[in-house]
């Protein structure tokens, strides 16, 4: 699975993107986040620290309970501040 990170999520993790083999029991975005928090301090800081995180599946906004089956890219980022 391709994981991509933006803004302070990217900075806390120290990566813009990475390819990860996800355990097959991970079914939703929320599951992926729970698993990522166990991948070391930077991930715990990004996903367990202060601030709201949003997610997208294959470049489409998705809720935490969205299923990741068949997805190629998951993105994590703070609420948007464009415009």
């Amino acid at each position, binding site marked *: 699975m391709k994981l991509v990170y*933006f803004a302070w999520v990217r900075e806390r993790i120290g990566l813009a993107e990475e390819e990860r083999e996800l355990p097959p029991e991970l079914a939703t975005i929320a599951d992926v986040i729970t698993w990522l928090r166990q991948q070391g301090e930077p991930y715990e800081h990004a996903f367990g620290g202060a601030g*709201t*995180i*949003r997610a997208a599946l294959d470049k489409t906004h998705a809720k935490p309970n969205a299923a990741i089956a068949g997805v190629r890219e998951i*993105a994590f980022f703070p609420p*948007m501040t464009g415009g």
Partner: protein
Amino acid sequence: MPVSEIPVSDLPVSDLPAPCAIDIRIIEGDFDPAAETAALCAGRTDIGALVTFTGLCRDEQGALAALELEHYPGMAEAEIARVAEAATHRWPLLGVRIIHRYGKLMPGERIVLVMTASSHRANAFAAADFIMDFLKNRAPFWKKEHKPDGTAKDWVDAKEIDEHALKRWDQAT
């Protein structure tokens, strides 16, 4: 868990049958509003109202040296297109052009352009206003502020007022 339970507001939909030309660009360099107007209106005499919104890099009393805009390539275009299409289904528009810049921007520089054309002004005003509200909430851009002293660099927080602004569009037009 800090993940937002409602990632973004759903776009309101409606049934207007006639979508119009939509032009969307995500670019690093500057744009020329006059050229966009000319392109949108070229050879047409059916447009009665043109609303142009320009968002500028604003310096709050010398507190900002520059803005850095990060974006999610691909998704930025797609999300803005969704917002623009929702607008064309809601109001009878004759043209929509949207440009959003990324990269480093200095105070006074243009950031975003939203241009809507219609026969009548109410539709053009409402559509541009709507597009900006949803663009701010849904388009994957993030602003980082560079301070004049060169030290602090802070990500701009999303404003609650921007989410509240969306509720205006829940009622029927």
